[in-house]
């Protein structure tokens, strides 16, 4: 049986066919697991009217890394879906913030666990679910709730994705992924939720079978394209944040 490798030559080739109007999910929590190189390539590629899903829009820390805020500055983003649309400190002004305040980009703020579960649901064939999170808050105003076993729950819908941009530590040519430490975060869920899954990989991409099947975090059937991250300065790697 023939086996097709999922390895792509470079980041620009990986993102070349992302269309205007696509819904893009971007993995990562703080720096671990963020696909910096694929985000930078999407910036060069220039697709417009994107909906971007990630934990944050990025940009409050130094050094500045490729993030949704950069795509917003590029005029590529119509809407973001994030658990933070402001920084963790009230004094933070994110690169995203002035565009949002001027109404040039829309935002949907979603509690982090609800965001994760909406992605998981989209990949799991579950159209909606009830959660206790955000009941009684302004996020629940005007929305459907239901009392189950005496407790009130809020209806949340699955969040399907067109293209997921992910970062993994190891991959084999079949697309099986393994993450390291807290790099895993949203990445496996975005792989489940997306129709097209692009992954930047830190270690040299392995032949199929080199990762023990018991150690695979995301199965290769969910993954379409792999690009190995070159060493710096050609590739972008996590950097120690400056103290604030």
């Amino acid at each position, binding site marked *: 049986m023939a086996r097709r490798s999922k390895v792509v030559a470079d980041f620009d080739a990986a993102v070349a066919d992302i269309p205007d109007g696509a819904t893009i999910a971007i993995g990562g*929590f*703080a*720096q*671990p697991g963020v696909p910096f190189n694929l985000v930078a390539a999407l910036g060069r590629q220039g697709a417009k009217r994107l909906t971007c899903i990630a*934990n944050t829009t990025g940009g409050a*820390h130094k050094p500045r890394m490729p993030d949704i805020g950069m795509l917003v500055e590029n005029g590529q983003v119509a809407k973001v879906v994030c*658990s*933070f*649309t*402001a*920084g*963790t*400190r*009230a004094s933070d002004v994110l690169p995203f*913030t002035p565009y*949002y*305040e001027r109404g040039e980009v829309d*935002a949907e*703020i*979603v*509690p*982090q*666990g*609800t965001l*994760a*579960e909406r*992605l*998981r649901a989209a990949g799991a064939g579950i159209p909606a679910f009830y*959660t*206790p*999170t*955000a*009941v*009684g*808050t*302004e*996020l629940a105003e005007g929305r459907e709730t239901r009392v189950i076993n005496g407790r009130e729950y809020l209806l949340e819908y699955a969040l399907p994705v067109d293209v997921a941009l992910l970062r993994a*530590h190891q991959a084999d040519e079949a697309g099986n992924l393994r993450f*390291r*430490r*807290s*790099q*895993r*975060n*949203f*990445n*496996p*869920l975005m792989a489940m939720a997306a129709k097209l899954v692009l992954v930047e990989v830190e270690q040299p991409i392995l032949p199929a079978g080199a990762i023990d099947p018991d150690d695979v*975090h995301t199965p290769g059937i969910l993954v379409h394209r792999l690009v190995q991250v070159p060493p710096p300065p050609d590739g972008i*790697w*996590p*950097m*120690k*944040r400056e103290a604030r």
Partner: protein
Amino acid sequence: MPWSRQQMAERLAREFQDGWIVNLGVGMPTLIADVPLGEREVIFHSENGVIGYGPVTPPGQEDLHLVNAGGQNVTLLPGAAIVHHADSFALIRGGRMDVTVMGAYEAAANGDFANWKVKGAKGGGIGGAMDLAASAKRVFLMMEHRTRDGSPRLLQRCTLPITARGVVTLVATDLGLFAPTGEGFAVRDLAPGATLDEARAATACPVSD
């Protein structure tokens, strides 16, 4: 002398019972991971799926693949485990957190609190706060008793958009440790030199001994 942030962290850590699973939020609560707990074993959980992390990593030894909820590079303790975000929040919603410790802008006598949106802002920062507040067994808050301009943060009712209704167990401030009672706050402990009258003057609802 009001409590320093470190002393607030130490006071809340005294409430932890042996075997608890504890989630620490961004900012002040991260100080708690460094407080010595003696004979008690507590497991720290972070929203990004890290179960069993330890103190912040010494400079120069950081593992850039490993952060806590605040994005600080931390250490893993023996027995640690890592899961993805949906499993991490399944642990939260599933009621496995014995306590979550968070910063807050306001806490109210009815147990409501607010920590995700400031006055006049269009955006906000929810992170995992609403999930944790809704489903942890206890919610401990760590906050300054007053705003920078001296207004009370402990109120009859929150004025900012709330994070969750009626969930607060304890509030540690620079003046002491307080528990919402429905009508006001009960003093559980006072910082050295702080008086009941001082706490009453700094609080916008009744404070009981």
